[in-house]
């Protein structure tokens, strides 16, 4: 099987966010970065799938050159190959442009059976790139996946569980498929020292817009259908009231206040 894992580099969720305000973009180069936490589950699922079904894993990412770091981590975790889709023209891409670039890379790899991605990123929070990729490729769109029940590589079929509102939906789908996974589907492993050492010396191949046959007018800031007009910090919640006194008295006051809201029946 040929397995692809889509990995995004995001600013460290603990780090200070730096904006290019006039451009409506993030200054990605100026921030500490990590692998998008949701993508760790996608990568682990790719590793587990390779263990159970043989095959090879290609980890791909779109981002600035600095995004090499997250692909190097994939190499340390023994993926077979990595590709970084990077081009100044990709900067400022919206959901469709991002999905188009990744879909073009997946097509260029050829004969891919299954693509894993995380449910969403922790920076843009859009959660639609996996679904958009499936739609562009015309492949099975399997989102919110909490478990892979079975993969029949020869019969080109997959059965997954999707954790959606109110319960779990069991879906059978044709391969190839784009599978976006939820936190909790597995326990992501950590790379070992030998893996890290080996990966540190490996070359990270890059694909630019021309390599991918992408019209630069249709991606990045130039091609984005949505344009950022304002970035703001939401007003802080005013600190409220600390209830003081004996526990009996506090519980009495609080339950009165909450019951007065007429939400509790």
């Amino acid at each position, binding site marked *: 099987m040929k397995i692809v894992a889509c990995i995004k580099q995001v*600013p460290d*969720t603990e780090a200070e*966010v730096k904006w290019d305000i006039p451009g*409506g973009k993030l200054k990605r180069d100026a921030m500490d970065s990590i692998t998008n*936490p*949701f993508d760790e589950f996608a990568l682990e699922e790719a590793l587990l799938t390779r263990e159970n079904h043989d095959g090879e894993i290609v980890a791909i990412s779109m981002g600035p050159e600095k995004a090499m770091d997250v692909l190097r981590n994939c190499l340390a975790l023994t993926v077979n190959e990595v590709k970084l889709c990077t081009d100044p023209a990709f900067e400022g891409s919206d*959901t*469709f*442009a991002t*999905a188009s670039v990744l879909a073009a890379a997946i097509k260029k790899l050829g004969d891919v059976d299954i693509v894993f991605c995380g449910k969403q990123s*922790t920076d843009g*929070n*859009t*959660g*639609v790139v996996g*679904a958009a990729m*499936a*739609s*562009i490729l015309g492949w*099975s*769109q399997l*989102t*919110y996946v909490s478990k892979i029940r079975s993969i029949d590589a020869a019969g080109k079929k997959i059965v997954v569980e999707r954790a*959606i509102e*109110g319960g*779990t*939906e*069991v*879906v*059978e*789908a*044709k391969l190839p498929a784009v599978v976006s996974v939820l*936190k*909790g589907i597995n326990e992501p492993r950590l790379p070992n020292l030998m893996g890290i050492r080996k990966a540190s010396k490996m070359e990270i191949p890059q694909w630019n817009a021309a390599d991918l046959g992408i019209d630069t007018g249709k991606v990045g800031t130039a091609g984005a*259908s*949505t*344009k*950022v*007009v*304002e*970035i*703001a*910090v*939401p007003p802080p*919640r005013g*600190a*409220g*009231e*600390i*209830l003081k006194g004996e526990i009996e008295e*506090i*519980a009495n006051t*609080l*339950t*009165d206040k*909450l*019951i007065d*809201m007429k*939400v*509790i029946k």
Partner: protein
Amino acid sequence: MANDVWVYIEHKDGAVTPMSFELLGIGKTLADGFGSNLCAFVIGEGVDAIAKEAGTYGASKVIAVDAGVFKGFRADAYAKAAAFLFDKYKPGVALFRATSQGTDIAAAAAAQLGSGICSDAIGLAVDGGKLKMTKAAFGGNYTVTVVNEKSQPQIATVRPKAFAMPVQDASKSAEVVKESFVVDEGSLNTKVLEFIKSAVAINLVEADIIVSGGRGLGNPEGFALLKELAEVIGGGVGASRAAVDSGWISVEHQVGQTGKTVKPKIYIACGISGAIQHLAGMRTSDCIVAINKDPDAPIFKAATFGIVGDYKQVVPKLVEKFKGKLGK
């Protein structure tokens, strides 16, 4: 019409809840802003009743795609139907709820039209004839406002409960237009085998009351106390990432940047310190109650009411008081 506002009415195998019609409220505000019409659209099998009900929530027109192949939601089938409707009617704006279903169909339909979308919008307004769409980034620590002057329709998914529910008026009705669009079963990629209902009765995203626990609970047994309180006041049980990662409670309860974003009327945080990643998922709750032993915990800066104390003493006391006052 070029500026008409369309709202997708989601249903589960033909069943709707009032929340299915939620976006007709903000949809009407936007249509009034544009001086255009509010239309609902519904895709499924046997959706006449749903189409009719959409009229009572304020849609002036309802477009229904009704065929056997649309029995049960499937992203590829539904997105093809949506893309067909958008191409035929050319609405200005199309809104979907940011649920699993709404996100799936919006993402796929937008991709078929070659356009980006604004996902999980928390603010929508017409300003100078343009639609301004605001969404949270970095889990709510920033808001980003975007406009889309290239796509028709401009597509947004909207966070549940971000806007007020429209008032139902049984005397109102809409013109219902049926579109005979079908897709060939053979061209579809997926088949739903079964649906297993969750044992967790309350969907946190739609819950009005949530009792949540964090690392400060100290052990998984702490959640038994929280569950008791939640049951007495009719709420769901939430958790911080720390509690989930410690294996004390399953991931479907997680609130925060890598969990669910919730907006209950009452959020009771027990033993949760209030890291920005957690606040990101619950900071827009109407009333936040924080119970924590540490008086310096950041959660108190966001709390409407704070109690500095041990949840093991406070929570049972709250249960006792609520039981007495609510006659339970």
